[in-house]
């Protein structure tokens, strides 16, 4: 039995411990905001927070998160009120939207550690997340806006 927390809620799992967290979230916990894109940690669509750090859930076996805390996009806010979500909405970032949950999770983790990221900081934090629609320019602008919004909240 493996126990861990997802979005503040206790979960326990007794199935195949090698199952990647991605499939636990999607198929067992029915949290579908975390997306499958590559299964190899190459695209970032499955990005979640592990104790506040951005990680790729498609290559993270459930057994590795025993006793730890996971946040998914559903845990950012219920109503798209997180500064990152507000900035994404303001700048109309999403095209198909599929990769954006992962993008926002990477961005939210960046902003937790760096309240005024430079272009290089943003590139470093975000270049593991692929967007086939090509929303990178807006994502970059949105991260800077989210940083401003987060300061306003404080």
């Amino acid at each position, binding site marked *: 039995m493996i126990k861990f927390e997802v979005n503040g809620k206790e979960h326990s799992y007794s199935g*195949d411990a090698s199952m990647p967290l991605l499939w636990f979230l999607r198929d067992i916990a029915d949290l579908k905001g975390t997306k499958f894109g590559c299964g190899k940690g190459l695209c970032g669509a499955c990005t979640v927070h592990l104790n506040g750090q951005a990680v790729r859930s498609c290559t993270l076996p459930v057994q590795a998160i025993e006793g730890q805390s996971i946040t998914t996009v559903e845990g950012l806010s219920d109503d798209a009120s997180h500064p990152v979500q507000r900035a994404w909405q303001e700048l109309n970032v999403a095209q*198909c939207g599929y990769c954006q949950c992962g993008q926002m999770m990477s961005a939210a983790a960046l902003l937790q550690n760096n309240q005024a990221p430079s272009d290089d900081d943003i590139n*470093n934090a975000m270049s593991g997340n692929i967007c086939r629609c090509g929303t990178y320019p807006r994502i970059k602008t949105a991260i800077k806006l989210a940083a401003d919004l987060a300061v306003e909240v404080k």
Partner: protein
Amino acid sequence: MSQVKCISRRRWLAGVAKTSLLLGASLPSVGYVPRVLGAEDDKESPEQVFTPSVYLEINVDNRVRIICHRSEMGQGIRTSLAMVVADELNADWSQVKVVQALGDKKYGSQNTDGSNSIRGFYTALREAGATARHMLEHAAAQLWKFEPASCRAREGRVWAGDRSISFGELAQLAATQKVPGKEQLELKTPNKFRFIGNANMGNLDATAMLTGRAVYGIDTVLPEMAVAVIERPPVLGAQPVKYDREAALKIPGVIDVIEMPPLKHPVRFQPLGGVAVVAANTWAAMQGRSKLNVQWSASDNDHFDSAEYAKSLKLDVDKAHRTHRQKGEASQLIENSDSTFTRGYYVPALAHAPMEPPSASADWRADVVEVWAATQNPQAAQKAVADQFGINEAQVKVHVTFLGGGFGRKSKQDFVVEAAYLSKALKRPVKVIWSREDDLLFDYYQAPTYQEITTALSGTEITAWRHREAGPGIQSIFKPDFSGIQFESNMGMRDMPFAVENVLCTSGPGKAHVRYGWLRSVANIGHAFSIGSYVDELAHHLGRDPYHYWLELLGPDRQIDFTEQGTEYFNYGENLKDYPFDVGRIKGTLRRAADLSDWGQKLPKGQGLGISVHRSFCSNVACVAMAEKNGERARIKKIWMVMDAGTVVNPDRVKAQLEGAAIFGLSLAYYGEITHEKGAAKQNNFDGYRLLRMDETPEIVTELIDIGDPFPGGVGEPGVPPVAPAVCNAFFAATGRRWRELPLRRQEII
């Protein structure tokens, strides 16, 4: 569906059936209202409703439900389509709700490709909104005993002086009004538009997308649903000979192992065959699949080697398998000229790689199969399933989910048929999930193409133009042994716009060994790359500035009728009156891009600008790229994209399409390449098939040109074609080195 509702609708229909109102040439009469009435979540609908069109319902609760019959895959069509209807209706934007249509012929084509959603339905959607507005105003007139002309719809209410009433309150009475003929409709003049052309409409689906609640194909959940993954034959046409069924079944959670039906030629949208592992969850299915250890039969395609094939294409351009355009005596002139200029260009096979791999779910019941799919074409999904199983299309009910990208991949319905097959076999709902490996190994690739252009020159003037190409085409998936391209030459080859007297366009053979399809902008990619690079090369060869030479080659402002130029041109299905091939507008687009990028400016050493322009899907896009050299390598630092697409409904989304097209074009120029060895694809994930990432993305400037054209052109695809040639032209300007074969990653400059 409740009785009251049926009666209400029938009564309304009785009044309109005789008028046989046609909403657009391609659309059936509104008199035909099928059972489901387009509203997928019909049960939410109140019992009385005003349904003036298949695209629109107004409910007594004052909701305006706009039925989106096109698939949402990132182009923002659900919002844009609603903007068109709501504008003519004079609805209040806050009362608008978009409902996704099921697959159904009553909507006209639902094939969401060809950059055709707004272009193909703009007038029909406006008429739907205007029809409803007319009937609401007449209902208010009847209620108040006023002249209809004194009752005007505005922001969700009908007004007469200070008196007003909501659309919802009028819905039932409106449903009893006579449906106006087209001649009675008052379509707005553009200065009255409130939503069309408004850049601040946002995205109706943003909250769903940003909270993880938007349901994509892969997110479908049905009661008792199983998940399937399929081990498909690595070589087209191979079949499983032997596999370890028991080993797969030993994995906890695996429910069954099912052999898929063998593929029959032509491949069309059939499943590829192989062995499916069905399980309680995705991971178990994947684990089971990894234990199958399938041995495959030999296939005719076992020896296909894309590198060898590319070499053969260079020889095959000499064979005029098909002639696409012939005007004057180009061959003789070139043969007899003492001044000719020949260059050849190659674009390899490309994969779509939408972020959401193909996924579909099916629930096969006694006499109906219900499907939930990330499909670009629910009608084709109905047909593909019906054809495979010998049932009627009406027995296939297709729900369209959000698509995590499409780019043409999800126009092909093989994954939908797989889900239907497995649900039928297992007698329970099944979701089929494609891995990224599946997506890249078993795509319907954009076909590789080798193209050679030769001109005969008199000074800087071209007296003869000859464009020859070789490569396989899309029809290979529909016709057995079909060789080479055919209609693809409409996409940038036969519509070469230069003022040249003698023109010959031919194509050689090209046998298909894998499945080929259509990728965002299709054959325009190869044609625009060849022509856009060639013009630049020729300009430098002649000592001319490439931008000015482009303008010179394009010649006088004029509208081209290609029937007078030695070819039949399909013009993307549009007539030349509404969608002329207007050289003046191509030049205008090019000029604006040159101005924006300050073309001609003195750049620091190691920097250079490249330019190109291309008309496709009835829109013009010019691209300027700025390259910067860094040692032996170079990168694009900035891109300017200028589009003339006529009327633009949703400027923010169209700009987003241009931003995306620049990145899509850069991805394919830098990295795009699928190769095959021994019949099997070599690139199976994002490490082998690279896409542009944020740190490689240049600054992108976009601009839309508005010359007051009342018709909307395509916007999803036309941005892509001019990017790769502009990029290579910029690399030449920055480095002095010319790249004629994509991808650039192979050329050690990226």
